[in-house]
């Protein structure tokens, strides 16, 4: 199918249609909206990591001139009160992390609202915080939730603990597999709490009208999800709530949930005024959802010829204050790049006094695959085999049974490994104090619901109305896919992200699904338009629609010489049955997994432990790259977030459970000056379930850098790395311990 197809539009590096607004400052993001009469809301946050709230007195704050409303947990109707989401948005009777929201105050200016926060008196009973998986799982650990019984055991435990869920996945017989092995390597690996680090803080502007009709303008990866969650917490019906997705300044999974919106709506209802709420950067770090810290143990056995015989892991993921880490996806991804019969993975979802984690690019996968890839590299070293050859020998391919259920269709891991092997990077020599690391990464990608309407204009151009917030240039891809399907120039199509009232439900932008699923909906809508165009042309020519062909944007009468362009058909649409619009409302299936392989060279200063990435290559299977530049951008961006995770990023908490680095000064994301160019190689093994062969590309790229960087460091210093980040103090310590 798609392999043979020649494309006219997709694969072009077109200028993104939303680009002009973004390079001129016109594009409106979450905090850029203003409404007449608007006032400002601010959140009071917990100064403690773990405490009971004994009493809240807001009288002095409410008495301050300019303060118009206060919202607390008591303002959420009873409907879904005990839900974790509601209790994360505003604490009930207990605060569970430093920065946990307690109440909101709205005032005529943000300065007055901030001053009012200082006037609230809260009586706390401070409790001992639980800040690490080991402490949380200790027998005498203080409990975050007194009633939490671990799920996932055949016999439920009788006492409460901080372990929310235990999960087990297996294939074959690992014990038998380890008996067959000539070499067995195992190790404990730690990854820290990290943040997505999107540059735009969470923000919303809301208005609650007298009749209960409400509007939310916010930056989100999924405005339909904002609508659903907010309506649920506030007991509203969905038709009462319109959500407009602003332009979004980065999300990486962190904007798939809500923090401010229900509070803002309560404040708006109580004050009768539109309310704007914008998080400060320290609020983003303290109280939005970071990625889980993990403690993972991995054991792998292999024969001397490189055949891996067994893979086993025990994974522990921090969920933050409420259950629900991506541990399960860690279990499903840890060993999935490998076609190995015997696998056993056990996972634990553990609550600690940190913010509730949120999705972060391939949620759960980087942590588990980090441990697995480090051990695979060590196996290669032990048996004296090239790490690419070892992976090629065991690589998952079409027909490989996955631990989570289905067998793979065509996947591109082997092609990525071959590309790595043939890259100039892999052949380049290294100097003293330099090291090279390689790692593979697997991510599922998802499909799901997308809705698109393609409204044709009387001049034959069209508006693509979609419901997927565009976070990295997806409108350019939608435009190219519509052009390809319609065989008409891309600039004839204007893609827009519509609000929840102007397009049917669409799942959020996440899971690398937008170009795949929403793209499929665009194609379906375009096909619907073509079908109608043919019918209209057939009606004009008095032939059947089957006798009409569509080529290069022109209807062709196969029974004669007649031609009608799209513009001519649309111009005459009023006389042939009214204007033409196509619809593609789908639940997309068949998302194709995307494999990635990364190569990283580092140089280490042995006197200080400082690591510099000196060369980097990211290789990934895109299925088919619709807009190659933005596909490369996903590979490069994912790689650099992963480099940050590997080298310097981490939440630092004191013994008191307070976050010590809630800012970009000490939460050290990579800078332009930290990096070399990131070479990217896009591999294309088409996904049979997408008309153009598309696989999602957004997430896999963040998986390999952790092990690629850390292994490169271990090679440079000739000593094993186990814990991330490879920050200078920790690398220097390993150097000193091993010299």
């Amino acid at each position: 199918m798609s392999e043979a197809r020649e494309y006219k539009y997709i694969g072009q590096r077109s200028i993104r249609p939303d680009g002009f607004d973004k390079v001129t400052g016109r594009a409106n993001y979450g905090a850029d909206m203003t409404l007449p009469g608007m006032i400002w809301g601010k959140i009071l946050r917990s100064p403690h990591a773990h405490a009971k709230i004994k009493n809240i007195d807001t009288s002095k704050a409410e008495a301050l001139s300019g303060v118009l409303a206060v919202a607390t947990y008591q303002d959420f109707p009873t409907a879904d009160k005990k839900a974790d989401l509601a209790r994360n948005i505003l604490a009930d009777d207990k605060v569970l992390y430093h920065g946990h929201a307690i109440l909101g105050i709205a005032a005529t200016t943000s300065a007055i609202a901030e001053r009012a926060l200082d006037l609230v008196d809260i009586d706390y009973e401070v409790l001992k915080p639980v800040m690490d998986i080991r402490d949380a799982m200790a027998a005498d650990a203080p409990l975050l939730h007194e009633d939490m019984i671990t799920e996932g055991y055949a016999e439920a435990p009788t006492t409460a603990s901080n372990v929310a869920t235990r999960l087990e996945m297996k294939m074959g017989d690992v014990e038998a597999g380890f008996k067959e092995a000539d070499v067995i390597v195992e190790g404990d690996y730690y990854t820290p709490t990290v943040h997505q680090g999107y540059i735009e803080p969470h923000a919303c502007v809301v208005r609650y009208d007298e009749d209960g009709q409400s509007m939310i303008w916010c930056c989100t990866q999924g405005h339909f999800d904002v609508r659903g969650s907010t309506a649920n917490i506030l007991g509203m019906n969905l038709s009462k709530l319109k959500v407009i997705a602003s332009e979004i300044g980065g999300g990486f999974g962190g904007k798939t949930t809500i923090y401010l919106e229900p509070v803002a709506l309560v404040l708006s209802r109580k004050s009768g005024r539109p309310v704007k709420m914008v998080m400060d950067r320290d609020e983003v770090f303290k109280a939005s959802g970071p990625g889980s810290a993990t403690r993972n143990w991995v054991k792998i056995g292999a024969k001397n010829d490189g055949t891996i015989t067994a893979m086993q892991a025990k994974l522990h993921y921090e969920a933050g204050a409420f259950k629900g880490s991506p541990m399960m996806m860690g279990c499903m991804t840890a060993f999935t790049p490998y076609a190995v019969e015997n696998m056993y993975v056990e996972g634990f979802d553990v609550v600690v006094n940190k913010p509730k984690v949120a999705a972060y690019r391939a949620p759960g996968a980087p942590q588990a695959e980090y441990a697995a890839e480090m051990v695979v590299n060590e196996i290669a070293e032990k048996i004296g085999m090239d790490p690419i050859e070892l992976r090629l020998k065991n690589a998952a391919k079409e027909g490989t049974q996955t631990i989570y259920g289905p067998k793979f269709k065509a996947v591109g891991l082997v092609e990525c490994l071959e590309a790595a092997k043939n890259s100039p990077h892999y052949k380049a020599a290294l100097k003293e104090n330099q090291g090279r690391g390689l790692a593979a990464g697997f991510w599922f990608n998802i499909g799901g619901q997308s809705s698109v309407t393609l409204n044709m204009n009387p001049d034959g151009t069209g508006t693509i109305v979609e419901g997927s917030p565009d976070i990295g240039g997806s409108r350019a891809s939608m435009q190219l896919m519509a052009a390809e399907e319609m065989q008409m120039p891309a600039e004839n199509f204007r893609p827009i992200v519509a609000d929840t009232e102007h397009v049917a439900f669409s799942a959020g932008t996440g899971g690398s699904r937008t170009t795949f699923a929403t793209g499929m909906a665009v194609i379906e809508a375009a096909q619907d338009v073509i079908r109608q165009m043919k019918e209209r042309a057939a009606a004009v020519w008095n032939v059947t629609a089957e006798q009409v062909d569509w080529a290069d944007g022109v209807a062709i009468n196969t029974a004669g010489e007649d031609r009608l362009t799209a513009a001519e058909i649309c111009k005459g649409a009023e006389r042939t049955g009214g204007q033409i619009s196509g619809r593609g409302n789908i639940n997309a299936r068949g998302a194709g997994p995307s494999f990635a392989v990364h190569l990283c060279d580092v140089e280490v200063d042995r006197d200080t432990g400082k690591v510099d990435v000196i060369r980097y290559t990211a290789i990934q299977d895109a299925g088919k790259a619709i807009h190659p530049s933005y596909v490369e951008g996903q590979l490069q961006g994912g790689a650099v977030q992963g480099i940050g995770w590997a080298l310097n990023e981490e939440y630092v908490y004191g013994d008191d459970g307070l976050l010590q680095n809630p800012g970009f000064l000490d939460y050290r994301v990579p800078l332009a000056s930290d990096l070399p160019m990131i070479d990217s190689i896009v591999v294309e093994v088409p996904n049979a379930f997408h008309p153009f062969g598309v696989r999602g590309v957004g997430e896999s790229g963040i998986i390999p850098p952790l092990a690629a960087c850390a292994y490169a460091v271990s090679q440079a210093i000739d000593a094993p790395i186990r814990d991330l980040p490879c920050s200078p103090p920790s690398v220097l310590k390993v150097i000193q311990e091993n010299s």
Partner: protein
Amino acid sequence: MAKIHVNTSVNGEPVEFLCEPHETLLDVLRNDLQLTGTKEGCASGDCGACSVTVNDRLVCSCLVLGAEAEGAEIGTIEGVSNKDQLHTIQQKFLEHAALQCGVCTPGLIVSTQALLKENPDPTEEEARYYLAGNLCRCTGYDKIIRAVMDAAETMRGAA
């Protein structure tokens, strides 16, 4: 708390505004003058999203008080293009796909303009260090640096 009356120039046009003593230049630009192209990412000078020029000097507008704008010349992203013509830097950012979410883009473009004014022929390393204060979390900087270098070359050619 009396408001302060400030006379200034923004993107070459005379502007008068009243501000509270505690308002930053960023607050003034965004909330009082509705110039929301300048973004707030951190309010501590660590991300560069609010980059503007004050008397031709690149600064973070979150670390300048609005009152300090008295008599100054302010340059923001809204003044970079020439009517309906994009500046070369803007054009190169689009051609190289040097933006994904785009929220760091106004700051980066203002900073790049300052860079190329000071140093029309920067090395890649000089460009990377000059722009180190402009965080981008989406792109990994690769395409940004390529756009900057290409813009520099094009502008040198045109000069």
